[in-house]
């Protein structure tokens, strides 16, 4: 095995997410996508507001050469602030779907990809690709649009099970050379749960 590369949420990011577990959803920010109903777009930040305050889910690009050449990979992080909220409000980029519902579960959607050349693993990439909020009557995903992009997709669904989650392994697993394979593992990892009565 050559190299392992991890792009996971920090402990502090997970602590912030867990601290909002049990709070009540108010709104989230993003730009509308003309061709994708219930999906919203942001280049770097999605702000989530609850009755306990706001937090910001951010992506940034960091460089790594685990594939054998320098490339940029998206890293998710969570901050306890609402930077950019005033601008989103001014532009009307605030959405109130599921407002008032309680956040009952918080998940991280993790994607692991192993490149295998001629039967031998060459690198392992593991990344937290989305943060998922289970609500009393719905679900919200804040998801990187790709492994190499700082953009974020915000989407709503009627349940966690019906969210459209794509691990995007095909960013690598596409028109492979002879002997080139990819092993893909996706996990929905629960990081917080609140029991409602």
């Amino acid at each position, binding site marked *: 095995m050559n190299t392992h590369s991890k792009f996971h949420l920090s402990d502090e990011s997970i602590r912030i997410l867990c601290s909002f577990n049990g709070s009540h959803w108010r709104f989230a920010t993003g730009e509308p996508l*003309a061709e994708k109903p219930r999906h919203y777009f942001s280049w770097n930040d999605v702000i989530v507001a609850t009755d306990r305050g706001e937090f910001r889910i951010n992506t940034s690009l960091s460089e790594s050469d685990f594939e054998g050449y*320098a490339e940029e990979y998206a890293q998710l992080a969570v901050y306890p602030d609402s930077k950019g909220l005033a601008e989103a409000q001014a532009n009307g980029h605030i959405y109130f779907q599921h407002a008032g519902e309680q956040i009952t579960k918080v998940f991280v959607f993790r994607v692991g990809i192993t490149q295998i050349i001629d039967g031998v693993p060459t690198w392992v990439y593991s990344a937290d690709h989305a943060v998922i909020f289970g609500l009393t009557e719905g679900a919200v995903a804040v998801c990187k649009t*790709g492994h190499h*992009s*700082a*953009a974020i997709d915000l989407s709503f669904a009627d349940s966690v099970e019906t969210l459209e989650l794509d691990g*995007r392994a095909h960013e690598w697993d*596409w028109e492979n050379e002879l002997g080139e394979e990819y092993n893909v593992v996706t996990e929905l990892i629960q990081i917080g749960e609140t029991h409602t009565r």
Partner: protein
Amino acid sequence: MRIISSSDPHRAAEDFWKRLKGQLTESQTDNGKGLQIKFPDGSTAVFRPFTSTFNSPAITLDVATPGLGIATYQRIHFTK
């Protein structure tokens, strides 16, 4: 990664970007080192005039809509 070779990589990259961008509004990337555009389905493209490879601007394409039968991620380097 794809390579597009030409006698003037910067001009070739700028021409490619102009065609790709069409009437879309571009903005600066978060680090201020590139330009970015968003398509109506959430697909994105980023143009970096300068990269870690000398004299080789790059354009990356992230296609959001699956099942189109095209590569969903492409990094194109323009070289001499």
